[in-house]
């Protein structure tokens, strides 16, 4: 069965600092991988996705993520955080075949301080 682990429940960074949010997955084959962001009181918005090909994927709002098969990881990064990036971030894994629904991690809450 698929599973996703986001080891950090809450991270605080200073505005302008770099950010890395960790995501580890468990899946028997090559997965589809996603990062979503949820601003307070809102639904989830897709930041980026990995299906195949280049293991470094670019997303919206200046985010990027790198798929590392050997480490079963898909960490999200941003070189310089803005106050508006404060939100909850969810990593998700999906199957390339069949109709298996996405499995989400428990989320990492990001706080940004001045």
């Amino acid at each position, binding site marked *: 069965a698929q599973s996703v682990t986001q080891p950090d429940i809450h991270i605080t960074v200073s505005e302008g600092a770099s950010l890395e949010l960790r995501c580890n997955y468990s899946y028997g084959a090559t997965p589809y991988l*996603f990062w979503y962001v949820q601003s307070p*009181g809102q*639904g989830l918005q897709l930041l980026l996705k990995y299906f195949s090909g280049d293991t470094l994927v670019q997303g919206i709002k200046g985010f990027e993520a790198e798929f590392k098969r050997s480490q079963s990881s898909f960490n999200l990064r941003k070189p310089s955080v803005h106050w508006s990036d404060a939100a909850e971030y969810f990593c998700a894994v999906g199957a390339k075949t069949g109709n298996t*629904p*996405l*499995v*989400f991690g428990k989320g990492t809450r990001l706080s940004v301080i001045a």
Partner: protein
Amino acid sequence: DVKVTQSSRYLVKRTGEKVFLECVQDMDHENMFWYRQDPGLGLRLIYFSYDVKMKEKGDIPEGYSVSREKKERFSLILESASTNQTSMYLCASGEKGEKLFFGSGTQLSVL
């Protein structure tokens, strides 16, 4: 602009009431999903549907049922609401293997 619309942003219900949460998508997606979101637990899948009149149980279906009479509409039903069903409910739609589009959520409080 693509849309997943949930009928209510906030709902307050009493224990034992029958509750309907409605979700409509305008993207002609085959697949629709209901998740609940609780602090520290992330998103947990309640039910999903891959076609009209079809449904599959997710990870936490107990106390819930669903209805999909039309492709664009997926309803979540709480047959007899209980306080432990107080939560944020998120509806999503998408195609197989593709990203999901989410509604804004319904914050349900059961008193």
